[in-house]
């Protein structure tokens, strides 16, 4: 166990370093500077140069990189130029919406898709089941922003039951908070549900052909018992991987959805940080995403073990 954890940790550190370095180099490669961003569109070159120097960004790239590495070792992700705050504080401050939406969307999707997929396989000729495969295919093919625009038009502009955009921290009222993250969550969940349903449908149908199902039927179990007691658990395996990947990706901030709905989560912050050439923040966020991605997948492996005793950790 210890060895496994250590090996995982080593891999994690490697991935983080790789990702961090890549982000560092890439963002510095992009023209433009934090100073220019701070000064706005009508700043002159002199002003920009002066501010750049005073921000300590004048040094050669390798020196800046080594400094960054040195700080990183000490757990210091640097200082965000656009927020004038330590990067970690900025990341923490913007965690709430992204994490909530990612969790809400994933949980909601699982709650919907698992029964739906099982039902649609079990009762293929019911009305709902006939529409499930087609609908999930359509939702998988639909760019999320397209669906988001549609939802806004219907639910925020026409019926006006949800706000069109914006965000209210849960501290200022849970109801308002929920109202504001409702549409983005639905947008992301629509895609996830489609993904999960199609994964699970395939999983369940595939499992149905395995011999142990025949054994269960040979015991005289009814189809419902066969599905729920035997097939479901085994077909969750592929879903776990897919769900973890999808959840991990959402934790990386759904940039487009957050932009459309003006949700100040990690995705929008990342987008703004890039626009503002906030070097430290871009690198910090990138590493946070990578960390969460790896951790979520590790947890998925653990879960995998719960379902599949063969690979139990």
């Amino acid at each position, binding site marked *: 166990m210890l060895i496994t954890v250590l090996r995982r940790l080593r891999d994690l550190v490697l991935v983080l370093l790789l990702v961090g370095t890549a982000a560092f180099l890439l963002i510095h490669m992009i023209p433009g500077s934090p100073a220019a961003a701070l000064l706005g569109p009508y700043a002159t070159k002199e002003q920009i140069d002066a501010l750049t120097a005073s921000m300590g960004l004048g040094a050669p790239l390798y020196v800046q990189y080594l400094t960054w590495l040195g700080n990183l070792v000490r757990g210091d992700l640097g200082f965000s130029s656009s927020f004038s705050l330590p990067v970690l504080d900025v990341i923490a401050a913007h965690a709430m919406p992204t994490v909530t939406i990612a969790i809400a969307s994933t949980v909601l999707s699982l709650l919907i898709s698992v029964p739906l997929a099982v039902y649609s396989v079990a009762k293929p000729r019911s009305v709902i089941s006939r529409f499930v495969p087609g609908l999930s295919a359509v939702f998988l093919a639909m760019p999320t922003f397209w669906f988001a625009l549609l939802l806004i038009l219907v639910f925020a502009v026409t019926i006006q039951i949800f706000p069109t955009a914006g965000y209210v921290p849960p501290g200022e009222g849970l109801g308002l908070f929920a109202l504001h993250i409702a549409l983005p969550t639905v947008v992301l969940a629509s895609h996830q549900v489609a993904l999960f349903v199609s994964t699970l449908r395939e999983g369940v149908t595939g499992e149905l*052909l395995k011999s142990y199902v025949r054994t*269960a039927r*040979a015991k*005289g179990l009814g189809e419902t018992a066969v599905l729920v007691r035997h097939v479901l658990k*085994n077909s969750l395996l592929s879903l776990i991987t897919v769900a973890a990947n999808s959840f991990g990706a959402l934790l990386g901030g759904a940039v487009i959805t957050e932009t459309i709905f003006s949700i100040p989560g990690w995705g929008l912050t990342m987008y703004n940080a890039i626009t503002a050439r906030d070097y430290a923040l871009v690198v910090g966020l990138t590493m946070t995403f990578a960390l969460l991605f790896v951790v979520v997948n590790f947890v998925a492996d653990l879960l995998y*073990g719960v379902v599949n005793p063969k690979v139990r950790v």
Partner: protein
Amino acid sequence: MGFLELRDFGVDLLTDEGSSRLVAQVDLSLERGELLCIVGESGSGKTLTSLSLARLLEYTSATVPVGHAALDGEDLLGLDQTAMNRIRGSEIGVVFQESMEALNPSCRIEDQLVEAARRMDREAARAKALRLMEEVGIPDPAGTLRKYPHQLSGGMQQRVMIAMALINDPSLLIADEPTTALDVTVQAEILRIIRNEQATRDMACIFITHDIGVAAYMADRIAVMYSGRVVEAAPAQELLENPRHPYTRRLLECMPKVGRTGVSRFETIPGRVPNPSLEIIGCRFQDRCAFATDVCRTETPQLLPVSAQHEAACWNQEAVAAAGFAEDAGAEPGRSEDTAGRAVIARAEDVSKSYRSRASLRRSHVTRALDGVSLEIREGEFLGLVGESGSGKTTLGRILAGIETADAGTVSVQGHEHSRRRAAVRELRRNVQVVFQNPHGTLDPRLTIRESVSEPMIHLGGLSKRQAHARAAELMSQVGLPEEYLDHVPDALSGGQKQRVSIARAISISPALLIADEPTSALDVSVQGQIMNVLLDLREQTSVSYLFITHNLNLVLNVADRVAVMHGGRIVEVGTPEEIIGSPRTEYTRRLLAANVETSI
């Protein structure tokens, strides 16, 4: 009216064009306490028949049982699946072929057993499960109940399956090749358990096997299936002694015989089993039959009573009965050759090999596959290597062939020690060739037979592509295949034919040593004979040595010059077949021999 009555029972396959009959003319009846074996080669329709009977096949394939089937007077084919569930749960128990697959990998044994129980509460079910587990010979029943299937050995899993099938005290037990994947010794135990349970519970039992030896050990009655039809059915003794169908007869002749050594030829049935869905005018065995007459080609024989209990579907029963059993066609069995004085061409000294398998994320598990093994193979020698599953036979073969490297010890072929140098590896490959167990996997499905056979000649033999292709034709005749097969892809060939191609490929560069790793285990007994004959002929023609790996002790005792017995990664005994049969030195060898005798004729 028997307890189980099948009248004109069959199985239809639904296709776009309509339906085709996969299984037909099954007329069988079975009493309580009676055990019926259905035997037949792979693809003869045994599984189709038995699972259609239990109405289990319809879920996963487009098949429909037709005709008439009644269990204790109840019409099985007229029921809907809900009603069938009731019957399946309480009246019919099923033991499946692949126990590992047939158990739910993610559920504990206990849950799987208990959920099968009808008409009792959880506690009673648990208690009963525990009792049954003991009954089927599981050492630590309580502990095992808490385990998951993958934590059990194949034999244990099969016992669990049996316990599961018995938990509702069914009146009919269907066992579909329950021992095929198991070791001889384990197989013997499982067979005993089933026989016992069947007898003590007074159950009717349909036992399916492709091994007529097993059938002989188990059955009260035997039904022989061929290409989806029952061709002969009779009380076991009667069928074995007085077969009336030429197919039954050939099957019996093909069996390796106990106690013989130095055999140089096996009986075979030429040709292939026709696909059961084919419409054939006349007898389905006509092309392979020595007794076939004109009527066989024009009219389909029905099952005709031979005696009160004995039926056979053959127009020429009398002729079949009249002909005596063919003795083994080869040189009359005699002593195997003494190879002691010959030069050693391959030698393993004190070879060890361990595998670190990551059984789970937590434990890494070290398997000692070989533990100080020493072995010599002499020029022209046929060395048999037997042992239970997992004893390290394959590993030893792979290490000798240089596909795997040993952790410790030395291996040399023709005096050269194995090394990683390119030239040495080439030299080794030239000297040692391998034929693998699974004929389906060993040929690249995308290459033609010609390309596959030519590969070693081009890469090791230094032949040009043209030369190699030309020589491929010769090789085909050497392994008894028509030349036109060279342009086929492997899929067009049967298992036995593929195995011959593998052999052709292996001998194409005239290796000094041919390692054959269970080359016949996946094949039917009739085809096994063909393959063995090819190998034996080669031995006559060239001075190639064999390391012949198998768990079929009978087979290897029949033909080998020397036999080595492996157990738990060690070689526990080496000797001539006569020595092994006559005076086995270890307890393990004795058990192996005993198990073999039980299931042989």
